[in-house]
């Protein structure tokens, strides 16, 4: 790990002013940044510690759930109102990482965690995301875990977060704070960028801009929601494919559906066509299979990850069944 200096600002504006300059990195839980620094993928000259900032609150109001950016994965997963009114969020969190990591890792850091593509995390290889223009060995190499949707000729890396999949399904909005106290809101669906020919630019975040909160609107669909994660081992593993499903049922008829999937896209992947195909139909295997058939629309699988086309549909049908039951 390269040497760095350490700063622990007392408030957000001091943190933002410090981090706006190049070579600076915020640290929240540190669970991703530490690993990336150990592997020389990130080489910041200074670490700006967010520990003293007041963004740890979890507020479940009548209209929305407001998650402070520094709330830990453990605390959000254990919050009774999250489990009751937004079960997909609690389930996605409990299916993530390990209990130790969840005690450390935060909401904001989770959105910004970087891909698990093995080439990206090994400086012995080329990688367009790590070193723009150096090439992408994954496209014709080890790509079993990588994306079938949203990729480009420059990068097919998967966004690894489970939480972001659940949150994007529920129309979550991020609250950001920039220089001079300026704040703005960005829908999570617009926050991550597709790789295109600039895979190193992953989000719309400006230098120094801080995520302060994640706001999830309450809805009937959020109450009837769930997360299904398919992986290579039963626990403590990233997703091969995952599904976040939220349904609003009127009798047996699907009034509203929110669907997003993980492990398949270069960003947390919302599926509006599948949602449209479900709305107005009787909940059941016929509608589920017909809608799931549209899930891989636009997929460009590589050699090793082609199995995800079918796995994606099966995972989605199983998740729909569970949530509708």
């Amino acid at each position, binding site marked *: 790990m390269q*040497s760095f200096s350490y700063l622990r600002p007392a408030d957000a504006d001091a943190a933002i002013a410090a981090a706006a300059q190049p070579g600076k990195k915020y640290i929240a839980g540190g*669970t991703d940044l530490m690993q990336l620094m*150990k592997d020389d993928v990130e080489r910041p000259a200074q670490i700006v510690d967010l520990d003293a900032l007041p963004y740890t609150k979890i507020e479940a109001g009548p209209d929305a759930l407001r998650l402070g950016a520094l709330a830990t994965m453990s605390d959000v997963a254990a919050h009774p109102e999250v489990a009751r009114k937004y079960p997909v969020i609690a389930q996605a969190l409990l299916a993530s990482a390990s*209990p130790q990591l969840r005690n450390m890792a935060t909401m904001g850091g989770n959105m910004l965690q970087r891909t698990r593509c093995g080439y990206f995390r090994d400086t*012995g290889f080329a990688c367009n995301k790590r070193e723009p223009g150096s090439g992408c060995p994954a496209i014709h190499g080890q790509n079993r875990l990588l994306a079938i949707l949203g990729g480009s000729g420059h990068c097919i890396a998967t966004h690894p977060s489970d939480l972001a999949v659940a949150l994007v399904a529920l129309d979550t909005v991020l609250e950001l704070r920039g220089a001079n106290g300026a704040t703005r809101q960005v829908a999570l669906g617009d926050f991550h960028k597709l790789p295109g020919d600039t895979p190193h630019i992953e989000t719309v975040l400006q230098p120094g801009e801080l995520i302060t909160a994640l706001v999830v609107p309450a809805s009937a669909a959020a109450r009837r929601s769930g997360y299904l994660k398919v992986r290579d081992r039963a626990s403590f593993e990233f997703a091969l494919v995952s599904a976040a499903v939220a349904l609003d049922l009127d009798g047996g008829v699907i009034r509203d559906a929110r669907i997003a999937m993980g492990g398949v896209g270069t960003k947390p992947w919302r599926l509006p066509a599948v949602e449209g195909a479900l709305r107005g139909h009787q909940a059941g295997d016929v509608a589920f299979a017909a809608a799931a058939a549209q899930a891989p629309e636009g997929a460009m699988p590589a050699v090793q990850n082609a199995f995800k086309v079918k796995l994606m549909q099966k995972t989605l049908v199983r998740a729909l069944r569970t949530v509708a039951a």
Partner: protein
Amino acid sequence: MRTPSLTRRGLLGRSAATAGGLAVVPLVARAAPEIPATTAPPNPVRTPEMVDVVLQVNGKRLPLAIEPRVSLLDALREQAGLTGTKKGCDRGSCGACTVHVDGRRVNACLTLAIRCQNKAVTTIEGLAAGDTLHPMQAAFVAHDAFQCGYCTPGQIMSAVALIEEGHAHSDGDIREWMAGNICRCGAYNHIVDAVRDVAGQTDTGRG
């Protein structure tokens, strides 16, 4: 493919990983008298990057001079001589480094020591009361819950936390909430037995 440039800084970063080997300060014997710092070289070297940090480890004050990049794991092992906490992957994937910070289990390898100032750190060395083992340590011995023993300190720290968290309702629960601790020897069945024993559980459903 990129050839990494070999600057002194870069080379130190790679070979000494955390500079723990260079940056030893002999404050250990005073701070934790029951555990002598056997690994500490005699001559402390102070680099310009170093800062003074005071940790609270197992109820004792532990003043250190460390670079900001030093992990809690390396500070404990290389500087405090508390080698009970193990380094497996150094990347959060194995749980061998599990300690408690302010009562919560965390991976010491992914924690910067400098961020632990004013927080209470508990390691495996802090569990026993004198010669009396913590009930979880005793249960691991009674159930033969290890083979080589390398993962064991992390397993025990996790198991103690798991029971405090209230997650030991069934064997399935115990397995899921112990998932952050890998055992290469595959002592899992006996580990579950030990945890169940301490939790007062009788579920033998091997979930």
